[in-house]
Every structure is written in C-alpha cells, then in structure tokens.
C-alpha cells in the first residue's frame, strides 16, 4: 500500500505528523494525524503545593501561558473555597483581555491573514506576514507589532512578566496597578478598539469583497457540522474569563449549559494507541470515531464555536459585528432555532470579532472605579480539598482540576486543554482535504498542502497546550513516497 507522509518541518521538534494511506485504487484509505510528544504534567504536578500551580502550568504553553495561569488560579481558589476580591478578578480579566488582543492579532496577521490577503494560490514565499504587509501597506505592519508590544506591556504591568506571568495566587493577586498604569492601559484599550475595527475593515475589503474567497469559505471542503462549546455569561453572552460552559448542537439546539465543575458529566477523552494526544468528545452523545454530525460526540471549541454558542457579544461594537457575521453567513436559523455558521474558514472572521470584544472589554475593565483598589487578596480560611477552574483559551475551553491533601499539596491533577478539544475536528479536516484532492493516486501537491495547512491554521492549533509540548503554529512538509517508501518529492511551506 502506498503511503504519503505529511511531515511537518517541526518534525525536528517531534511535533505532529500526518500519515495518509492510499488503497490499491489510489484513493485515500485513511489519514492519521499524530501528536508524538507528551510531557506528563498530570503526573509531576502531584506533590506540588497548589499555590505553585499557576506558575508551574504556565510552562504547559508559552503561547498562551496567561490562559493556564488564570484557569489554574481559579482552580486554586476553588480548592481553598475562597472568593477573591472583586478587584483581583477585574485585574485577572484585564490581563486576560489584553492577552486576547495580542494573541488574536498575531494569528490574523502573521498566520491566518496570508491565506486571504495574499491569496491561497500565491507562492509560499509570499504567503507570510511580509506578504501581508506588502498588500496592506507597511504602516499596518507597524501597528501589528505595536499591538503585540502594547499587549505584552499590559500583561507585564499586571502579571509581572511578559511571558509566564506570576501574580495570580489562591485568593486573588499578589499586586495591583497604579493610577498611571490604569490610564496607560485604558489608552491601549481604546487604541486596540480602533485597531480591531480597522482589522475587520481589512477583512471586509479583502475577503468578503472577493467572491472567490467567499465561495471558498462557504465550500463544503471547509464545512463541518459538529457540536460547539464555549463559555457564556448569565445572559448567554460570550465570556473568556468566567461563566458556564454551553454546548450547541449542529442543529442550533442548546444541548445544555453546565458549571465547569460538572465537566466530567459532559466530556470524556477517547484514547488511540498511535498518538500521545487524547480525543475529547461529548459523553452524552458518545464517541463514534472521527465523523461529524449530530450523532457524533465530536465537538469543536474555537472563536467560531464561541460565537455559535453565544446569543451575542457583551459589548456594543462587537455585538454589531456579531450580527453582521450571521446575517452574512447564516441568514436563517437552524431547525434548533439558533443561527449557526459551520464554515470553518469563517473562524478567522469570528476571531476578529472576538478581538474587538476583547479590546472593548479592556476599556470597560480599565475604567472600572475599583480597578486600582488595594483590596486584591482574600486569605483562605477553609481546609483545601478539590477545585475546578475553567477559562476560554483562544484555542478552546481550558479546564484545570486539582485535588489536594489537607496541606494544600496536590494528590491528583486533570487538565483538559484548549487545542485538545479540536484534535478530532482537525483530524477530520485533514482527512476531508486529502480525500477531496487525492484520486487514483494522483496528488495535487500544492493544492494538498494549501488545503491541509488552511484546514489546520483556522484552528490556530497550539499543541504546546495539547501535548504540553507543541509550541506555536505548525509548518508543514509533505513527503510523497512511492510504494517502496522512498521519497520521490518533497514540498514544504509554512502555515
């Protein structure tokens, strides 16, 4: 049987590899997406004091340490049955919103943008951030860099460090912000709102204004009807830092909304022996393998998912963008009643809407009268036991679950990490891409690459989180081998 190995350059890092098997007729028999790395946080966090977890679990992922820092701090609060002062929560959420601004900006311009702005068929050499800047103008590049820089500055102001923040502890924060810092953060927030709107403008002009792109977004190859997951506030508006987890069926039915602590009633993780990464799925629906539809427990947790589960956005400008999003892509509601977008490429658009929300929310928080209050810590009085902490990481719902002894030393740990949620959908997208492009053993090389990488990129996969090893984004390389397994051609490009 012939075998095609799509082998990321990051193979060097032992990160992710795709094996496509063809049947004797040269049709795709199966495609496997392997995550060949594990670090074992669930094991070695046992024995550590719970107050260390927010900094220890930072190291799960250097791309989104803020998410782990927050989920961990919330789990630690729960372990001690302590409710941090309002200001502490505001500070955490403010840091977290700033992080969303940087993260979503980076992804859209450096990673997702090239596909649309430069064009999916442009030569790989141009399909990168520089290509984008060439198209939209250098000054935008300056703004992109500024957006990242400013975001990291806010993170450092509140978290102490630009990467791997240090200030969230059980019961609150170790330190607050001054009025000067608050003012600066507010300024950055307002700047970010404009930047987000500007970015949406680019998307409008370059993408929605281009029928070919629109067609591609709506095309079947990039459509999966799966369940969706995301955090919502009491009004079912999306929220990144806090709230209840809501599940939406592919048919627009709200399957349920649960408190994070109940996650085990809803989610289980399936195990395959050929990969180090587990496949989460909806327990109530069950694991049916890598297939979509209402009968398969496969779900997805992305910006798109969060919009799909939410009734709307909690800030005015984002709400407007939200409505426009659905008016454009899903004019009529599903049978279940909620309007849903199943087109995966729309995730890029959804991400920009979240960017706008994050920026607006930053300003809300930075202008809250209590944000500079010195009251940022509640000292725990109860015996530590068990606790769950959940936040929305940019790449999906993130849950930390700790059990401790009476000294607050961990006895067990469970981590359900953002990107992991989308492992199954990603594998599905890959298979779908392969199937649509490989016939009779004939491979449309460049196309295959583009399709696969685009399928990937929209999930903004961060396997640093998932396997506690896969950093950042994932470049791809396709090795095509003849039946003897020899490499006859190598194609490679970056996503």
């Amino acid at each position, binding site marked *: 049987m012939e075998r095609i*190995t799509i*082998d990321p350059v990051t*193979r060097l890092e032992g990160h992710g590899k795709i094996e496509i098997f063809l049947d004797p007729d040269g049709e795709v028999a199966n495609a496997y997406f392997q995550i060949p790395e594990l670090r074992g946080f669930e094991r070695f966090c046992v024995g550590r004091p719970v107050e260390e977890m927010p900094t220890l679990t930072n190291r799960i992922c250097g791309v989104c340490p803020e998410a782990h820092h927050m989920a961990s701090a919330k789990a630690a609060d729960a372990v001690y049955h302590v409710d941090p002062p309002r200001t502490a929560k505001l500070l955490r959420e403010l840091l977290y919103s700033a992080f969303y601004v940087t993260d979503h900006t980076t992804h859209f311009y450096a990673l997702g943008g090239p596909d649309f702005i430069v064009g999916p068929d442009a030569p790989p050499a141009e399909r990168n951030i520089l290509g984008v800047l060439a198209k939209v103008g250098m000054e935008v590049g300056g703004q992109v860099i500024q957006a990242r820089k400013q975001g990291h500055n806010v993170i450092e102001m509140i978290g102490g460090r630009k990467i791997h923040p240090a200030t969230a502890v059980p019961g609150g924060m170790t330190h607050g912000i001054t009025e000067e810092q608050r003012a600066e953060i507010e300024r950055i927030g307002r700047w970010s709102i404009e930047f987000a709107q500007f970015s949406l403008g680019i998307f409008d002009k370059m993408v929605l204004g281009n029928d070919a792109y629109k067609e591609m977004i709506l095309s079947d190859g990039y459509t999966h009807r799966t369940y969706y997951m995301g955090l919502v506030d009491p009004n079912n508006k999306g929220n990144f830092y806090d709230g209840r987890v809501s599940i939406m069926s592919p048919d627009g039915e709200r399957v349920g909304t649960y408190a994070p602590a109940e996650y085990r009633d809803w989610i289980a993780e399936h195990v395959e022996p050929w990969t180090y990464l587990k496949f989460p799925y909806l327990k109530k629906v069950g694991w049916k393998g890598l297939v979509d539809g209402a009968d398969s427990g496969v779900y997805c947790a992305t910006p798109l998912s969060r919009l799909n589960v939410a009734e709307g956005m909690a800030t005015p400008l984002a709400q407007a963008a939200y409505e426009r999003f659905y008016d454009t892509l899903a004019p009529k509601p599903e049978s279940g009643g909620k309007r849903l977008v199943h087109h995966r490429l729309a995730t890029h658009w959804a991400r920009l809407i979240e960017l706008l929300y994050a920026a607006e929310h930053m300003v809300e928080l930075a202008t809250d009268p209590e944000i500079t209050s010195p009251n940022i810590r509640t000292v725990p009085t109860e015996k530590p036991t068990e606790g769950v902490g959940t936040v929305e990481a940019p790449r999906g719902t993130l849950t930390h679950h700790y059990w401790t002894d009476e000294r607050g030393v961990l006895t067990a740990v469970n981590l359900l990490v953002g990107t992991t949620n989308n492992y199954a959908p990603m594998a599905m997208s890959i298979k779908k891409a392969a199937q649509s492009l490989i016939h009779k053993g004939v491979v449309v090389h460049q196309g295959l690459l583009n399709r696969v990488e685009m399928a990937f990129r929209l999930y903004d996969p961060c396997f640093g989180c998932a396997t506690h090893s896969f950093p950042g984004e994932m470049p791809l*390389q396709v*090795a095509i081998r003849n039946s003897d*397994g020899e*490499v006859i051609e*190598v194609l490679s490009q970056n996503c």
Partner: protein
Amino acid sequence: MSGNGHQPTEGGPSVGVPAEGGPSVGVPAEGEIRIGVYVCHCGSNIAGVVDVVEVARWAGEALKDRGVVIAREYRFMCSSPGQDLITDDIRDLGLNRIVVAACSPHLHENTFRNATARAGLNPYLCELVSIREQDSWVHTDKAAATAKAKAILSGGVERVRRNTPLDAIIVDINAATLVVGGGIAGIQAALEIADAGFHVYLVEKDASIGGHMAQFDKTFPTLDCAACILTPRMVSAGTHPNVTLLTWSEVTHVDGYVGNFTATILKKARYVDESLCTGCGVCSEKCPKNVIDEVYEAGLGYRKAIYTPFDQAVPRTPVIDRQNCTYFEKGTCKACEKFCESNAIRFDQQDEEITINIGNIILATGYEIFDARRIAQYGYGRLPNVFTSLEFERLSNSAGPTNGRIVLRDGVTEPKTVGVIHCVGSRDRNFNNYCSAICCMQSLKFAHLVKEHTGATVYNFYIDMRTVAKSYDEFYQRVMEEGTLFVRGKPAEVTEAGRLPGEEGKLIVQVEDTLAGRQRRIPVDMVVLSVGLQPRADAKELATRFGISCSSDGWAIEKHPKLDPVATMTEGVFIAGCVSGPKDIPSSVAQGAAAAARVLGRIQMKQMNLEPIKASVHADNCSGCRICNTMCPYNAISFQVAAGVSSINAAMCQGCGTCVAACPAGAIAGTGFSDEQVLAQIEGLLKVGADGTPLKRSAFPEAHHEPIEEAVRA
C-alpha cells in the same frame, strides 16, 4: 615484618619509576600536574595489614593518568631518609604535588609539608592521607584494608590536584594584654607579664582583687595562711607600674582578632573618687547602715553600705552599695561624705565606659560553688547547723565574723561532733558528673581545723579519697592520725528527726558504711557540706563574648586538653585557672603563669603567622543577599552597605567554612578546604569499590531504539 612478605627495598624507588613518556627530570610543562605518591609501612603498623607494596604499585599504574609520576613505598616516611625521598623527587622529577599515605595529619602533616617546602615547593601542595589510624589499625581483613587504602589514596590524589599554593597570613601583635578575673590565676598571669615589662589591664568585677582565695583561712596541705601568701601578690598587682587595675568593672564587648583586639570595659560607679580616697576606712566606720555580707562573708557577717570587702582589699577604695545606702534610698544621711577628710565621696558619679586596645586576652574568671540547697535531703538552708564549705572557711578564719571561733549558727555553742560530707554536687549524675578536684583536700583541712580549734569528734563521709598531688596524701595520713573518723559512703540524708537515744537535738547523718557493710545513723552537732565547684552562671555568655567555646557544663574548652591546656580555639585568647575546670591553687597559679608565658611568646614574636585556611568573598558574584551575615561567630563577616556586598576579615576568620557552605551564590571561597578539593576527593574515594576494583556503575536508562529511518531522512 611487612605485609605479604614483601621486603621493602630501603630507600630506593621500588615501583612506578618515572612514568614513561613523562620527562624523567626537570620542570613540569605549563599547567602539567606531576604527583609523587609515598606509601608508608610505618614498620608493620601499616604494612602488617595493608599491602603497601601493592598499593604503591597500583598508584603508579592506575593513577598514572591522574598525574601520578612516581609512587614509592618506604618503611618510615617520617624518618629523614623518608623525607629525603620526597625532597629529591621534587627536585629530580619536577613534582609539583605530593601525596603521603601514612598516619594521621594531626601527627605528621607539618613534617611532610616542611619537607615539601625544603624542596622549594609550596607546603600546601602536599597532602597527608591516613591509612594507619583509619585503616590498618582498625581493620583486620587485609584485602578489604588494602582496597580501602587504595580508595583513600585515590581521594588524596584527586584532592591534591586541586590544591593551590597558600601563604601564611601575617599580623602585628599589640604588646598590651587584657587579663579578665582578679583571682590568684589572673593575678599571677598579670604579674608575670607586667614583670616582663609589658602592659596589662587587670579587670575584676568585684570591688577588690583576690578572688575566692582571699576568703580562705588556711590552704592545704601546707596550712599556711591564705592571706599571708596572697596579700603580697595583690599589693604588687595593685601597685605595679605596668598594671592598670580595673576593679568594680566588667568587659562588655570584644572586637578584633589576635594581636589587635579592642575591648570595651564598663567601670561601675563606686561613688568614691579613687584619686582622692586614702582608704582610711572612716567612711565605713561612720556609715549607720549594716548589710549582710553575702559575697565575702558568705552571709555569715555584716558590712556597711559603704565598704571595702575586707581589710587587705586591693584597692582600698570602698564602694557604696547603692541598693542599701540610706542616701540613695531616702536622699538624706551623707554620713560618709561628712566624715571623709579628703572629700572623696561622689554621689553623682556615673558608670563609665573605657575602650582599650590589646594584643592578647587571658580569661581567669574562675568558678562558683555548687548551691547546696539543690540537695534537699542534706537540709542546707533548712537545718541551721548545716554549713557549706565556704561558710566554714569564714568561720575558721581568724579575720572572719567569729574571729576564727568554730561555732554553731547560734554564734556561741562549739560543736562536740562534726560531720564533713564530701562530693556534695560532684560525681553525682543528678548534678555534676565531674570530680571537683579540691573537695577531698578541703574536707581534710576542715577536719584538721575543727580538731585544732575545738577538739570535737570529726567524721568525714567520702566516696573515694583523692589525694593525688605533692604532700596531699601525707596530709591525709596526718589527719587520720589526728583521730578524724572516716566513713566510706555517701550519706543518704541529714535529719534532725532523732528517734534513738542520744539523737535528740542532734543532726543525724544517715549513711551506708560501705566498708562496714551496714547502715549507720551518726548524730552530730554540725554538718559541713564540701560543695563542688561549677562554672559561673554567665559562663556561656562569657564564651560568646570572647569567641571561645565551652562544654555543655560550661567549662571553657582548651585548644587541646593535654598539649595546649591554656590556649583556646580562638587565636589570642587564653584561659587560666578554674574557668576551664576545677583546680587547686597550685594548678591555677601554674596555669596563670603558663598563659602569661604563651602571651609573652606572642609579644616577643611581634608578628604572627595565621593558618591560611580562610574564607573570602568574590564581590562580583556576591548579590548582597546577606545569608552569610549571621554565619560567623567571630563577626568576621560584615556587609558593605555602599558596595552592597558582604566581605570577610581574613584575620578574624577562623576557617571553619560555614559561610562557604551557606552562600547560595557560591560567591564565598574557602582555601584549604575548597569545594573543588572536597568534591575531587569524593570522586577519588569513590573510584575504588569495596573489593579494590573500580566501583561498578550503571548508566541512566535511555530509549530502547534509535528513531526509525524515515524520521531521520524525510
């Protein structure tokens, strides 16, 4: 006979002649380490158990790649031909490191260091490792002992690779000396030094020098009068041009290091101007206030509120006892002031602080007596006619409260029968384990004095009779001949509960006569408790103040109990008399003189070499975390605020290395026992297994197979 029948070839190199390849003569190449190894037979002391020939052979071959150029074994390395082996090899083979495997460094380290130095190599590039005390003498299994010798040698070789040349540290010696304690030991020390022409500060906390000896009447075994022999010494101490006498004073703080100490002395207010006072004593006569004299008269007599402790006191200048002075209590009286012809009374006098610079310190702070109240069954403090030895000294003293009449508490009745109990508080697990050394003789003296003064019957209750020094046992014989009765046994109790005829109104000593082998009840009129000696209550603070160490009892610890009994671990601080343990007068005096001799030696040297085992801070690596600041009991570490780093005064550093181990930044280096040296020695010691073969080691487990081919190609 040497081990395994090998006959060592006298003198000549036996094995491991210059490693081939290595130059046989001449200077080593830059950075090249050339080690000479010398294994000593010590006759059969080592060779009898350790196969020294094999050890030398092994070292010559197995340790060649560790820089061993030559390995020899020789019958007695410490002999001059043995030392010549080393000096010749250094010259002929260009050795730059020496390892001698022989006896303990405490015996011959200097011997071999000096030999090394004679050949022009820095002495600290020589290591002596012990394969005798730590090996041949304590093991019987020859194979195991030989294996251990190889390990020890290997450790020495690795260590010596890391040795660095060291130079002794030189400090100047200030010729002035501080003597603390004005008892007989301190007085002796002070006079010895003063007579030699150097200045002495003699500090005494009481109003007069003289110490306990001044309270005694007669001294054993010669029975000459304590006052008669002590007073002249006190006077010359008080008048000596080279002695600054500081009574009614205490040392509160000491800084610095050998040769360069600074001491702060608190001179308590006497309320009398010493420069004007003639010591006529009229003030005491006129003082209306009588006070029980707890110190000098042991509570048996009275003194005035302004007083000189005793007639022969030096200085004569009295002190006002502020607590009991009517003027200080009520603001009126001033009798002393009225009658003082030289107007020396100064009610407004204040305590003053004096700072002095000295080069050496002698501590002669003496002892306290055991508190007899602690042994309730002997009834002291409860039964009026139970006395302590010190009280008896006062009773029998012609200058004492009873003018030498030995009477009961009522002050009139002479005892008909007296019991003297030895070892009170000494040789007793419940109190002090040690023997107080002087009680036997003092008890015999008491027996004699009772006989002499009253003719009463005297019982001495003893456990063992210890009369070890010159003429002591003769005195014992004499007292026996005088008719004193000796009962061997430790009295269980002293009670006044008489129940047999003849016991009423008496004190009954309940004792098991271990010679007669029966219980006895002996009625007496007076019991004298021969209480033991113990360290002063403030002994531990004193030790800390002067940077010396003391045992858990509180006695100061000598640098070496036999070989250096008057020196301490702290350079420049010496001890004399009972501060280091109970002693009789002759020993105390001898120690005072000995300490003085040590100090005079130092003064004559003018300069002194200190062992270069010192710690030092690398300022570049020091973060100023100040962890080390509390590590040094000698206050050698100080924090330089401006530079934000800690630093160490090399002369004050005693080289213990505690700060080196404490520094989290690894910024403190210790010479002589550096991290590198110790870690290397550990490696060396562990290169050899228990059986003499290389220690077997496994590797950390690794993934079973290399990654599959396509992973590599792609």
